[in-house]
């Protein structure tokens, strides 16, 4: 029988408010333990939580960006569970009336658009942090009470790769809204995954497992693939799948069973008596809607239209807000109508420089004018592509301009045939087999010879000229 995976994701986004969701404690990351706590977030008797207006607005903003319906009436509920990271033994969350529901996010799957439903987005408070050591656990409640928006997808995702796309796009949208830094390393974005398999074409859901401890989008993808295989193997062996929570072990690249999770009803939700309900009127929603900037999908379409970029290029350049602003500044400043060279440089060499320096593209200090200068030098044939990369690296390291670097490093491209003839002859002599291959009709082997000439000239030879010369020389002979 052929099976299909059914995947739903729960994403927790930490909203970047200055203070916590129900009290005035700061939310600064990395503060000394238990220095950002008060009677409210520690749940001392007699304290009263009061909702942070900004946290509600941010939640509505995300809900709108995810095409959700915003509830006109919303309230908070208590979720009960006993664990040392929760000083009150209750978490203030939302049960039956989440702020936002019934939305969607369109993702790209193999060049097609797929719509993933968003079941709900609700606001809740974060728990504290435990550090396990020996037989003790150390508890820091600074994170307790920080606003979390939980975004729950419909089980519309049918492959690990789709889950990866969904998360990438979701992060991108939230980041554009300026409501969270979405930094997984800091825990500002966390993801749990629900997965089951069912015979292809059937409607009923199989028994699911929930995967936790997913610390990167790659971990989500790998863990889902592992879990799908595990389910399929159990099915094939005629064994029962148990509904349970499993932990992803990054090192061993496998999931491990956790003690079975308490059933939803065991959380014993009831309306939070300390917080009166909230009404959100249409005009307020309209005001918040106006603060939503151009979102990644719209920007991508505009980049394709305004700058003639391919879908692939446009998608990479809108991935984060900073990247898109940086890219657009450079695309605009490029004097020619054909913007392809700029896109190539941004996605190719400049992205590589950013990567190798552990930085974002937007942190690479190459001004629009400086980039235009490099591209101009290549297009006019003054330097080779290879030399241009050297110029780029040097420019980032020293801040010098391209012309100076070309002079100082003697990178001017050699396009003069007479100056290249000696090197070409030497390469022909050294590689009789490749020359023979070319003559026997293997046209591609000429590229190897070109490469050798480039090497001998330390990248300064004009590869196009070298190729023409070699072709003439070897065909004539």
């Amino acid at each position, binding site marked *: 029988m052929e099976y299909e995976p059914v995947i739903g994701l729960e994403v927790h986004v930490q909203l970047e*408010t*200055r*203070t916590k969701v129900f*009290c*005035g*404690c*700061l939310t600064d990351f990395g503060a*000394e*333990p*238990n*220095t*950002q*706590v*008060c*009677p409210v977030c*520690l749940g001392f008797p007699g304290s009263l939580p*009061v*909702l*942070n*207006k*900004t*946290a*509600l607005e941010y939640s509505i903003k995300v809900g709108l960006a995810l095409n959700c319906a915003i509830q006109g009436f919303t*309230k908070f509920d208590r979720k*009960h*569970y*006993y*664990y*040392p990271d929760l000083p009150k*033994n209750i978490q203030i969350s939302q049960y039956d009336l989440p702020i936002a529901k019934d939305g969607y996010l369109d993702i790209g799957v193999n060049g097609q658009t797929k719509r993933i439903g968003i079941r709900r987005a609700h606001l809740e408070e974060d728990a504290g942090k*435990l*550090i*396990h*050591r*020996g*037989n*003790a*656990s*150390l*508890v*820091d*409640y600074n994170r307790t009470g920080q606003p979390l928006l939980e975004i729950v997808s419909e089980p519309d995702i049918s492959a690990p790769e789709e889950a990866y796309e969904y998360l990438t796009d979701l992060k991108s949208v939230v980041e554009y809204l300026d409501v969270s830094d979405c930094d997984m390393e800091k825990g500002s974005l966390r993801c749990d995954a629900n997965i089951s398999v069912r015979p292809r074409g059937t409607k009923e859901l199989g028994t699911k497992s929930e995967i936790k401890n997913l610390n990167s989008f790659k971990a989500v993808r790998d863990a889902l693939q592992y879990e799908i295989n595990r389910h399929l193997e159990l099915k094939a062996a005629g064994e029962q799948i148990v509904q349970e929570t499993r932990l992803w072990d990054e090192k061993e690249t496998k999931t491990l069973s*956790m*003690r079975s999770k*308490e059933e939803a009803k*065991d959380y*014993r939700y009831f*309306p939070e*008596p300390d*917080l*009166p*309900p*909230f*009404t959100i009127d249409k005009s307020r929603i309209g005001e918040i809607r106006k603060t939503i900037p151009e979102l990644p999908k719209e920007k991508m379409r505009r980049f394709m239209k305004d700058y003639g970029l391919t879908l692939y290029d446009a998608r990479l350049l809108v991935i984060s807000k900073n990247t898109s602003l940086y890219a657009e500044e450079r695309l605009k400043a490029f004097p020619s109508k054909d913007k392809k060279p700029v896109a190539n440089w941004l996605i190719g060499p400049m992205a590589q420089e950013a990567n190798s320096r552990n930085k974002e593209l937007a942190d690479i200090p190459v001004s629009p004018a400086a980039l235009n200068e490099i591209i101009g030098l290549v297009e006019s044939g003054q330097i080779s592509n290879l030399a241009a990369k050297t110029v780029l690296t040097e420019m980032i390291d020293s801040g010098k301009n391209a012309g100076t670097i070309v002079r100082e490093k003697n990178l001017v491209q050699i396009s003069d045939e007479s100056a290249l003839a000696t090197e070409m002859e030497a390469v022909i002599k050294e590689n009789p087999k490749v020359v023979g291959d070319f003559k026997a009709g293997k046209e591609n082997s000429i590229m190897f010879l070109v490469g050798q000439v480039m090497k001998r000239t330390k990248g300064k030879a004009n590869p196009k000229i070298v190729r023409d010369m070699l072709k003439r020389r070897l065909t004539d002979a």
Partner: protein
Amino acid sequence: MALSKETVRYVADLSRIELRPEELEELSRQLEAILEFIDQLDKADIAGVEPTSHVAGLANVMRDDVPVSSLPVEKTLANAPHKEGGYFVVPKVIE
């Protein structure tokens, strides 16, 4: 409403409370009486009554996103039986 000892034990377990057998007896009896009392609510006619989520009649009580001083850490930890380097220390728990 009859309340089985299993249910009481289960709820105690969820709340991480250990009960001695005689406590289990006594609490089961008391909880049962409480539930019976609450069962009176079932007799009320609530047709056409909107669910109540709050009794104070208030709505939209919010605060601006403005910091207020937190507690000094000594005060926060003052009643903790075990503490170390600004942390609360509890027996090791791993889910």
